[in-house]
């Protein structure tokens, strides 16, 4: 009989305390809540959290070997500082961004171009569909070693890999965009006497644009990831190479520093994309 009694007592006190707490402690608690609801409060909370993690990381009482594997924020910062001024970061960052953007542009142009072609000539696309589906399903990173053999360890092999990745994403969204065009709209233009070219120029391209933008937006992240992966696999420059190099030398501090740079890059990229998106959505929709 005793356990149920205590249990009910606990429930009882809990039930009576809850409204009391809200009533009596509402002053300080709600003002703290209100503080976190403001954007300054949120940023403050975030910084506080990061500071706590960094402090724990820096001062955790761990064995020497463990310290070697986990490095420390001050050491990482020191390495970043050195890299910033001896130019290491810039050289590798430049290489990564160059590979990424060149591959991206090539992939987008080819994807949109060939996507429209296949969208317009549905017979051609029906012939190619299974082949495209096969390639689309293939994780493109599997091609990386092949591209290195074909094009060398320099940028061109990585640009090709990024381009192929981006190409398939943009290609499929372009084809889908052209396919999903409302048949009735196309018919309406045909009845007005529009030629095939006019229908393409005045309807298909415009109707496909939102789809193409969706594919291109998705492809930015893929381009970044693919570039890094390609650099990790085989490279002599780039942020991925920097991680790989330092890990290979058991320089954990250097590896962490390179990862920090990658994180900063992807945060900036995400920020840039969402800015572009919000501006784009105005005239797309």
């Amino acid at each position, binding site marked *: 009989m005793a356990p149920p009694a205590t249990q009910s007592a606990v429930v009882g006190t809990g039930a009576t305390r809850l409204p009391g707490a809200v009533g009596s402690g509402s002053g300080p608690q709600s003002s703290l809540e209100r503080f976190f609801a403001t954007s300054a409060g949120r940023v403050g909370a975030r910084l506080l959290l990061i500071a706590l993690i960094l402090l724990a990381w820096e001062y955790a009482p761990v064995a020497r070997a463990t310290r070697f594997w986990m490095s420390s924020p001050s050491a990482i910062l020191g390495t970043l500082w050195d890299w910033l001024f001896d130019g290491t970061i810039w050289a590798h960052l430049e290489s990564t961004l160059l590979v990424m953007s060149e591959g991206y542009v090539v992939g987008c142009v080819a994807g949109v171009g060939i996507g429209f072609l296949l969208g317009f000539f549905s017979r051609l696309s029906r012939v190619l569909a299974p082949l495209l589906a096969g390639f689309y399903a293939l994780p493109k990173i599997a091609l990386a070693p092949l591209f290195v053999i074909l094009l060398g360890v320099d940028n061109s092999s990585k640009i090709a890999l990024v381009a192929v990745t981006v190409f398939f994403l943009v290609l499929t969204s372009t084809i889908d965009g052209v396919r999903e065009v409302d048949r*009735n*709209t196309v018919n309406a233009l045909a009845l*007005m006497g529009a030629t095939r070219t*006019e229908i393409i120029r005045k309807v298909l391209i415009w109707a496909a644009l939102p789809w193409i933008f969706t594919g291109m937006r998705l492809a930015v992240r893929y381009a970044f990831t693919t570039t890094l992966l390609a650099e990790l696999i085989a490279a002599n420059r780039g942020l991925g190479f920097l991680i790989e190099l330092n890990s290979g030398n058991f320089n954990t501090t250097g590896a962490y520093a390179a990862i920090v740079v990658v994180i900063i890059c992807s945060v900036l990229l995400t920020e840039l994309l969402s800015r572009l998106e919000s501006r784009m959505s105005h005239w797309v929709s």
Partner: protein
Amino acid sequence: MNDLTPARAVAADAGTPAAKIRLLCAEKTFQVRGQDIEALHPTDLDIRPHEFMALVGPSGCGKSTILNMMAGLMRPTAGEVLYDGQPVTGPNRRVGYMTQKDTLLPWRTTKDNIRIALELKSHATPRAEAEDRVRQMIELVGLKGFENHTPAELSGGMRKRAAMARTLIYEPETLLMDEPFGALDSQLKLLMLDQLQCLTQHRRMSVVFVTHDLGEAITLSDRIVVLSARPGRIRAIHDVKLERPRDVFKVRFTPAFSEQHERLWDELKDDIIKGTDV
């Protein structure tokens, strides 16, 4: 094929007035999940040149299907559709078709949507003249002040009117209209009927006009085709004996109008009640 030959012979005969559009035993069956749905029973119908013809009938009796076949967007399952005596095999560029669901381009403004036909090579128009005609059309359908709105920013009735302006602007010789004024309030509807009557009479267009509204049909038409519930077939064809020009605002109050309305309603009411499954 054999049973079509006499009808063709009649069409070719110089004595009878040539039909603008002719359905010859045209029938349409849709396949829906392996099931045959007979939308239109084999039907013969002539639309005379410069005639205003209304199609009325319960929902789902094949009115839109008939227009789609006349526009060449659908082939009859059997039988034939002739336009000026020629079989319609592809999109029929001689007709302007205002579909039941509008097909305005969502990325274009009202004004740019209305202008689109004039941008095409087949109706090539100098820019200044095109602008002029667009302005006239916008005024005619009462969309002044909404020139720069996109379709998403227009009400259902406004979209219908924009679609109508887009079809009328290039003055097709034949007009197919599928419930063009369904979404309009009755005042505006009368104004639109008036404009439509002026334009089609003035340009001597042939018109096939689908509607639910018997009053609308009587006000505008030379003949009214009454279709029965699915599978659609022609139940009767009524001549409207009201002289032209008609005053769309007043003609409804004349005895001839009421009498016509009554006769049509008698024809339709059983089917309307049967056909309300949609």
